[in-house]
């Protein structure tokens, strides 16, 4: 059961969030995208992978029967974009979940325990951040057989460093606060202090970073799939759909354009919501 106070706090955050028109637009887009991804089997007019009479059905421009046209195998782009949303969004959500879990754990340990452990962990973060992410991704993926699970894991493993820095900084601030001293004086153990008193007070920026990070993750997944290192055809992902249409870009623009737009809108939607959340969760900021 939610306490009255918690409900009120939630309501206040929602009120501040609502003032951001763009954030609301972003949220609506995310709801629409997630909804259609979930309902893809019901909405999609065609089987996304079915190929029948390729010669007759391929490279059809958008029309009533194929609202986004067909690709070079005669597959319905609209259906594939819907199914691609399932893949791209779930990779995005799962990978960011891995990233924030890792980032929060490592950042919290570094900030809370400090000393050599902190130095070692943060040097490691600096080192990882000194490589461009795409290079890390390509190297890691190239070592193994490409699969959706691998892509998700690798995106998560390369996406936590920023979060860990944020969390470490927050923990350093919060651990000096008097309520933490109070907890020590009351004889609470270190694990309890970290988990129950420090972490809940550093989560706001983590939520914001996670929301902003989903967009990036989806973009990175698209890039990998575009390079042929991510989701493997025939399974549709927005990245490999764009890749598959790049030879025919001028003659059959729709093959690349629609999944491309899906990527752009999704990334934008998460960034808008992230910005709105940042303002709404921080009462000191005036929207």
């Amino acid at each position, binding site marked *: 059961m939610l*306490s009255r106070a918690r409900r009120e706090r939630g309501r206040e955050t929602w009120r501040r969030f609502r003032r951001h028109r763009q954030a609301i637009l972003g949220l609506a887009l995310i709801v629409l995208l997630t909804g259609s991804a979930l309902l893809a089997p019901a909405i999609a007019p065609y089987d996304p992978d079915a190929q029948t009479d390729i010669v007759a059905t391929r490279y059809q421009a958008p029309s009533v029967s194929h609202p986004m046209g067909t690709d070079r195998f005669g597959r319905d782009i609209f259906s594939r974009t819907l199914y691609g949303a399932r893949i791209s969004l779930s990779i995005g959500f799962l990978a960011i979940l891995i990233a924030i879990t890792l980032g929060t754990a490592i950042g919290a340990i570094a900030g809370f325990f400090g000393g050599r452990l902190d130095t070692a962990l943060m040097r490691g973060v600096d080192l990882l951040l000194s490589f461009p992410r795409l290079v890390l991704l390509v190297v890691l993926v190239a070592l193994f057989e490409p699969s959706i699970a691998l892509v998700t894991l690798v995106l998560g493993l390369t996406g936590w460093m920023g979060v860990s820095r944020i969390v470490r900084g927050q923990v350093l601030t919060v651990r000096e606060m008097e309520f933490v001293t*109070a907890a020590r004086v009351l004889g609470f153990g270190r694990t309890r202090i970290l988990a129950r008193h420090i972490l809940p*007070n550093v989560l706001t920026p983590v939520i914001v970073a996670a929301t902003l990070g989903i967009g990036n993750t989806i973009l990175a997944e698209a890039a990998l799939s575009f390079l042929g290192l991510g989701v493997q055809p025939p399974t549709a992902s927005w990245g490999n759909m764009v890749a598959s249409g790049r030879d025919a870009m001028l003659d059959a623009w729709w093959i690349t354009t629609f999944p491309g737009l899906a990527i752009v809108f999704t990334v934008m939607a998460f960034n808008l919501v992230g910005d709105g959340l940042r303002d709404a969760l921080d009462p000191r900021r005036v929207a």
Partner: protein
Amino acid sequence: MIEEPVGGRAASEGNGGVLLEAEGLARHYASSGPWGAERKTAAVQDVSLRILRGETLALVGESGCGKSTTARLLMGLEPPTSGTVRYRGRDLGSMSRTELLEFRRRVQLVFQDPFGSLNPRMTVGGMLGEVLSVHALAAGEERGRRITELLGLVGLGPEAAERYPHEFSGGQRQRIGIARALAVEPDVIVADEPVSALDVSIQAQVLNLLADLQERLGLSYLFIAHDLAVVRQVADRVAVMYMGRIVEASDAATLYHEPLHPYTRSLLAAVPRPWPPSEKRRVPELREGADPPDRSTGCPYLGRCRHPARDEECSLALPLLEERSPGRWVRCIKT
């Protein structure tokens, strides 16, 4: 002497009712000065004090004189550079885990800042309940009853349990902090400027609450304040601190009536109170160069001292804290 607080326990003090005791406490901080040069700040030096059962010892001094550092050392929040803290005769530095946990139950801290000292993400009931659960003091239905009881002790209604700290005023938050400290049934409470962050109108209420709780629960207080006015109505004994050292200590009535150390007098002068007329004579000028360039020798108060008898002698050696009459200590060679 007042009886055991709620949930009585075997008294085990065989040393004249001394609960918490500091002996020769010192705490140095290394701070890096300009160009990386390391400077040592002696925040606390040679502090000895005893908190007796049921009494209020006030520790008074201006900002930065080392009061909070003394409190942190007494609470075992940081180790002293030298000296010892003892609780019921047991050295804090050599306590086992179980002994330390017991110490945490018996000695509690109340903070100055009513905003920073409460976890903003926890309801008041959550905070109190956590203390009760960690120390296995009350479970199930009993826990809810105890929370209500604790809130009642500090003058808050049971509905406060459901709320978050930001929904309360400064004075109410201070009450919550006190309730949290009381949850473990302590016998000593170190209160570090518990009212200095509050409106003057609220200060009296919180002071009354503390006095009332002392009477009902038989608590001992170390009451820290930066002026003597606040302490007047609560203190049994007063220790005055200057630059990390105790410069005067005595029972409260004597100290207010007849302060000895020039610093205590200046503090009392800040409280509306006439400076003794005999002291109004012109303060003699010190000879040039008499103020020692090295502050480690001589009286640390020399530069600010308005004592009529102040002279070069004061710059020769650090005055010792001497007992002038039973229970009256002063660190000044001219009084």
